[in-house]
């Protein structure tokens, strides 16, 4: 199938995808080790550079991309990394006086500056960078709109202020602050910050399963998938995933139903709770509001819950999560998940898998995908968890849940601050690091406002309208009682 750029929002995604596709092809063929240089040459094709100083630098960057597609630096458990030679060292730093400056008599900029950083030199405002704190007040008061604020896209995208410039002006991530949300990955115009890929691990896992004879490999897919892969139906995408070599596709939303059940029960006891399904949100609390960690729900994320269900029913199973999320690439290796998930694949990487294996989704038969309830499926959008908890609590006769929906880290910060200071009126805090929820996850193919409607529609298509049957299933797959044959 031909792939146009329309599958992705940006050309940066397209280049990452091209690298992944080649890495996947060669990994399946078993000659990846000897093909790395040729893949890099193929990506940075021709003899003429297109954006950097020379073709050799572009090839070197491509080699780095191949390295990232093969897992990158595995000694760092954070899945986000800077490709330093790809960083353009953007010469952008804060306030800039443009040629529109008239050097006027009023010089409101000079007067408003709280740090006395502005002087008028040769009829032109000049900012002393050593004093400027980039508060932006000069920009607001200038009657000619002559002063503009510019920040590096990576620094602007990072809501936890984990990105700074090193002495060579290269982007640098402070991993003590980074919550692996992936916002910078999507925003860097040079693709210099990227997520490490585990596609080669997954291919090894599939190969060694000997087509399910040794063990079965399951795919757990995030409900946000419904807003992606628009060229085929979700039911065809499910068939396509099986064609890659997965035994069965299970909805993460099934795990979400069980997470809801746990959260309602936990809220009943604690009367104050935050969600725990977004690993970036949980990391944000741990790193910025350690005193609030006590309120974070102890329930595991839907991804982990779904994987546990699978492994209870099939103890030798391996489980790969497929989603829009870079922080799931961090979460699955955390000790608290107990190895429930064996690896994580992004939607971008899934697309690369389809095309590397020449799987034409549109020509495939449909496979049903229906295990979860309406509520589990709408977890993917901001407000979905809160709505689920409120409704499920009501159905269990639990009263008094006052949810607040926090979409994006900025909203999370404000509301958590209220909670910390005892000023919160809400008692259930739904937090998602990405604006709008998982449907806008950093590793989505496309980020569109239409995605919300897609998820709502998908929720309505669920056979189960309540979480009741999912909870039954959960209880049914719990470890064995005595009296029966013990197979585990």
């Amino acid at each position: 199938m031909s792939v146009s750029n329309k599958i992705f929002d940006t050309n940066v995604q397209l280049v990452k995808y091209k690298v992944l596709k080649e890495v996947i092809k060669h990994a399946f063929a078993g000659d990846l080790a000897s093909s790395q240089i040729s893949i890099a040459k193929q990506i940075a094709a021709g003899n003429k550079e297109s954006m950097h100083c020379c073709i050799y630098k572009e090839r070197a960057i491509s080699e780095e991309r191949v390295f990232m597609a093969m897992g990158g630096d595995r000694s760092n458990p954070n899945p986000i990394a800077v490709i330093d030679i790809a960083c353009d060292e953007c010469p952008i730093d804060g306030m800039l006086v443009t040629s529109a400056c008239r050097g006027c008599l009023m010089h409101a900029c000079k007067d408003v500056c709280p740090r006395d950083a502005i002087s008028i030199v040769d009829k032109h405002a000049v900012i002393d960078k050593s004093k400027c704190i980039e508060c932006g007040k000069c920009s607001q008061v200038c009657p000619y709109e002559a002063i503009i604020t510019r920040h590096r896209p990576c620094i602007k995208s990072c809501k936890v202020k984990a990105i700074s410039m090193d002495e060579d002006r290269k982007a640098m991530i402070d991993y003590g602050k980074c919550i692996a949300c992936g916002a910078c990955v999507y925003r860097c115009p040079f693709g210099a910050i990227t997520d490490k890929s585990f596609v080669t691990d997954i291919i090894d896992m599939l190969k060694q399963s000997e087509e399910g004879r040794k063990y079965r490999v399951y795919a757990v897919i995030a409900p946000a998938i419904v807003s992606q892969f628009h060229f085929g139906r979700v039911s065809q995408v499910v068939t396509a995933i099986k064609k890659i070599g997965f035994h069965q596709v299970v909805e993460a939303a099934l795990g979400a139903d069980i997470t809801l059940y746990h959260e309602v029960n936990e809220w009943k006891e604690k009367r104050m709770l935050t969600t725990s399904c977004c690993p970036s949100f949980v990391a944000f609390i741990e790193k910025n509001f350690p005193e609030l960690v006590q309120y974070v729900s102890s329930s595991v994320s839907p991804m982990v819950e779904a994987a546990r269900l699978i492994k209870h029913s099939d103890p030798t199973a391996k489980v790969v999560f497929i989603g829009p999320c870079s922080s799931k690439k961090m979460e699955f290796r955390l000790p608290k998940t107990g190895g429930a998930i064996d690896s994580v694949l992004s939607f971008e990487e899934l697309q690369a898998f389809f095309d590397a294996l020449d799987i034409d989704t549109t020509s495939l038969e449909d496979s049903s995908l229906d295990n979860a309830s309406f509520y589990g499926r709408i977890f993917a959008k901001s407000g979905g968890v809160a709505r689920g908890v409120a409704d499920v609590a009501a159905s269990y006769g639990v009263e008094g849940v006052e949810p607040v929906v926090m979409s994006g880290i900025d909203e999370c910060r404000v509301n958590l601050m209220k909670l910390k200071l005892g000023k919160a009126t809400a008692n259930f805090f739904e937090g998602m690091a990405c604006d709008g929820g998982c449907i806008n996850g950093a590793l989505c193919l496309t980020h569109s406002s239409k995605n919300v409607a897609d998820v709502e529609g998908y929720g309505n298509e669920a056979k189960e309208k309540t979480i009741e049957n999912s909870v039954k299933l959960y209880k049914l797959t719990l470890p064995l009682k005595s009296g029966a044959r013990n197979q585990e």
Partner: protein
Amino acid sequence: MILKVCVGSSCHLKGSYDVIEAMKEVIKKCDVEDLVELRASFCLGCCAQGVTVKAEGLSNAAVEHLENGDVLLHNVNSQNVEDIFLNQIYPYIKK
């Protein structure tokens, strides 16, 4: 012995949960709750013949055996559960 009811998407849509409920009833009725472990399983690979139930650890069986002696029962629904259990499972439960 273990009874695994398929809850893969295809079987789920055909009523896995009704089968599970009905199976619980009949197991209780026959007074073999301590001998039969009822569990769920994701996709037993017979999507066209759902709901599928896999019986593991029977002494013998009237229907086709799998390689390891387990038995697959197809097209189970809440109406025929009792019949299938009484004829194809109950007589072969090991004490």
